[in-house]
């Protein structure tokens, strides 16, 4: 098999030691993933059982409130819920009944645990069971935790998909399952590339509508679209499915390697693979090259945010000519990030977790050309003269696969481009 796995002399990051840090974390909690999950599933409502802080986080992270009644909300715990004056379960049933009566379009209800609901040990799985019975068969109720004491940012999607996996029907049909919620336009590109290679049937998790939920079993092979889906992968394996390990489909090289792994699993010939991928590969290379000019030879420092960091570092170092100085990630899943890390020559510091003050000291000492960080840190670093790319955009913008490879490079190039354009402003 002529796999296009590129090689280099010497060790790769897959063997690098990991700097584990345990201090102040500056990352979102898993609730944030509701912002993109609810858009992926237009028949779902996400009900956070939490505090005013949870509601405020969702509102602040969403940035805009273009929906009068969004398909997410927070059941805010009040003093009486905590003091035991009101049975929280009765209260929850009442709020859910009220919500569902207002929103007949809702077919899936996610009860999302939060920090306060975890600490008071409010059993949402019991609530989900009870509510499923009460509202069957029209509505499926699933619970998971998006709490900040259990999950960071993208782990919220992982927890959600893992919980969904538990309630998928069983089926041993041989099928390909694409796992991870991408914007529909990108998901459709993936489906069409795979269909052109003759692989069928192909299903997605999450499915856009509840009735399209895949059956799962020993015949299922799955490929992750996002690197942060470790628990979901485990849950799928428990149901008999097998993972197709691959680098993540970012950039021309990553997308090709990802598709190649799928093609190999399903016995697609080299000729077919070549025919299907040649044109989009060429387009992607060209698009990346146009943006990468500004990134060539520049250094980049990743602060932990989404677990996308190893994959993005691989893309930037191999396709855009950048030098990663530190690859920080909130949680490093060796099994999933391994194929990406194996493609990065050793050198950068690999760090997991965070002690934000110490990490910022390292940023200031290294003075990278570009720092990838969260929104709380970006402007302060810019004010110190360091160019930044806020990482949340890498999650909210379509960046996967061939047709978005140029856009992905563009996201990193734009801050540098901007600084160059308005350089005369600095006094």
């Amino acid at each position: 098999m002529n796999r296009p796995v590129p090689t280099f002399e010497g060790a790769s990051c897959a063997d690098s030691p990991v700097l584990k840090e345990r201090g102040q974390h500056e990352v979102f909690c898993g609730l944030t993933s509701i912002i993109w999950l609810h858009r992926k599933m237009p028949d779902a409502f996400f009900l956070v059982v939490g505090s005013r802080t949870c509601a405020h986080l969702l509102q602040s992270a969403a940035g805009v409130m273009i929906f009068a009644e969004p398909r997410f909300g927070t059941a805010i715990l009040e003093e009486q819920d905590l003091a035991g004056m009101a049975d929280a379960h009765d209260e929850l049933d009442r709020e859910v009944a009220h919500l569902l009566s207002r929103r007949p379009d809702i077919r899936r209800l996610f009860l999302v645990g939060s920090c306060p609901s975890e600490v008071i040990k409010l059993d949402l799985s019991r609530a989900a069971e009870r509510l499923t019975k009460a509202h069957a068969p029209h509505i499926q109720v699933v619970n998971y935790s998006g709490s900040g004491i259990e999950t960071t940012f993208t782990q919220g999607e992982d927890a959600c998909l893992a919980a969904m996996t538990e309630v998928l029907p069983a089926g041993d049909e041989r099928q390909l399952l694409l796992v991870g919620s991408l914007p529909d336009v990108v998901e459709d590109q993936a489906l069409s590339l795979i269909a052109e290679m003759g692989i069928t049937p192909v299903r997605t998790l999450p499915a856009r509508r509840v009735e399209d939920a895949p059956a799962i079993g020993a015949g299922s092979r799955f490929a992750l679209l996002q690197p942060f889906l470790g628990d979901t992968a485990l849950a799928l394996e428990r149901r008999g499915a097998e993972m197709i390990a691959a680098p993540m489909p970012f950039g021309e090289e990553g997308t090709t390697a990802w598709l190649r792994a799928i093609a190999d699993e399903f016995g697609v010939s080299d000729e077919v693979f070549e025919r299907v991928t040649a044109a989009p590969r060429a387009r992607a290379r060209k698009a990346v090259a146009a943006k990468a000019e500004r990134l060539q030879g520049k250094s980049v420092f990743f602060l932990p945010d989404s677990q996308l960091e190893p994959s993005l570092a691989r893309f930037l170092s191999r396709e855009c000519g950048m030098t990663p100085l530190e690859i920080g990630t909130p949680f490093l899943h060796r099994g999933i990030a391994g194929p990406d890390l194996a493609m990065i020559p050793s050198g950068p510091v690999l760090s997991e977790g965070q002690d934000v003050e110490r990490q910022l000291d390292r940023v200031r000492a290294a003075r990278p050309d570009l720092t990838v960080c969260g929104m709380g840190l970006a402007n302060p670093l810019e004010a110190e003269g360091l160019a930044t790319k806020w990482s949340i955009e890498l999650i909210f913008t379509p960046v996967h696969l061939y047709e978005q490879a140029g856009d992905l490079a563009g996201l990193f190039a734009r801050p540098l481009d901007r600084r160059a354009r308005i350089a005369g402003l600095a006094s």
Partner: protein
Amino acid sequence: MKLSVWTYEGPPHVGAMRVVTGMKNTHLVLHAPQGDTYADLLFTMIERRDHRPPVTFTTFQARDLGSDTASLFKDACLEAYERFKPEALLVSASCTAELIQDDPGGLAEALGLPVPVVALELPSYQRKENFGADETFFQLVRTLAKPMDRTDAPSCNILGPTGLGFRHRDDVVEVKRLLADLGATVNTVAPLGASPADIASMGRAHFNVLLYPETGEAAARWMEKNLGQPFTRTMPIGVGATRAFIDEVNGLTGVIAAADDSHLRMPWWSQSVDSNYLTGKRVFIFGDGSHALAAARVAKDEMGFDVCGIGCFNREMARPVRAAASELGLTALITDDYLEVEEAISEAQPEMILGTQMERHIGKRLGIPCAVVSAPVHVQDFPARYSPQMGFEGANVLFDTWVHPLVMGLEEHLLHMFREDFEFHDAAGPSHHGHSSAPAAPATEVVEPAQIAAYGDGNAIWLADAEKELKKIPFFVRGKARRNTEKFATDHGVAEISVETLYEAKAHYAR
């Protein structure tokens, strides 16, 4: 338990963050899980601050809960003190840490730090952001401020401006200018821009200017009682309130001075004939209590609007807002439920909303123009230009920002004159404000005399002539005319809407 989709206020610890982020040489250690660090971005992104808020989060995780979250908190305090060397350290817990009851105050006290430690009790499950800011500032003042000799010349402190405050940055500048004209020296502005040392010297002032009751009233009352400093009651928003504020300050300094109003244009702008069209515009006002009250006064007495609805989201201000509403012959809407506000606005059918960013979105959906007069803040509320709400320049700013969402006076007359011209087909719409969300029929549509059509969920049907007449009404008020007519028809049991019904309804609602 209460379902919330959008909130007007954050939790109380965000209020505490607004106080310390506005200040200098102060640090807050917050016992909180990692998710709570999202609040940093409010300051760095919305307010575009070039520094991180001076806040350390302990970011405890589930695995810490079984072991020792208390020592995690103590370590965070020590490290924060070592790294930032603040003049005062504040400690508190966010909603989750409140549940694990680690007693941040006691733990921090036991560390024996060489600076004042202020422990904040912020009941997350009862109170909200404004309370958090008010309480934090009050506790700081109570701990740090002491009675001391007064300055020789009349002087005052300005109380209430915070980080992430609605136009606080520019209001402070404008009010300082006013006070300078009036011969009152400003001793300390706090919390915004103050250090703990500045707060400690607040006792030197003769009186206090309470700029924002929401975030400064508890401190003002305590200082009145314990430092003998009276405080001003008028928020100088609008021409009349600014003049009343000047009188109040003159009363406190004992010197009758006038403020320079040579740059005040608002009265003439409101008196000039172009503003005739503003007369009797029905406005719905919603915001924090003090800004809603101020907006009502300006709307009624200075812009010549009719206030058709008023309310606030902070229950603490319910009493004065209810009183003002009853003077206007209205019932105040006191709620933090966004859907209730949307319903009330939809019911009142105002021609304009004076609200918050939340009402701006409501207005977009309902096709009603909106000017923003109150927190909660949005990146648009931190403009690059100088844009106060208070004082004489503030009055100028109010006139502009309230009028711009409306169709301009002369332009409205021209639109009316040319409404039948083909360039003014409905789809063109006005370019500078949201137009009716209801899709209007194309102007070229030929209505057959016999053709009748039913609209909406009302029972009445529109006769063709009435439908044709409706089209002659300018598009920016047509939706309202249609709704009013249908409501009139339903209320009066009219099954078919004729041209006559249309004008009867017009007369009915014009009364």
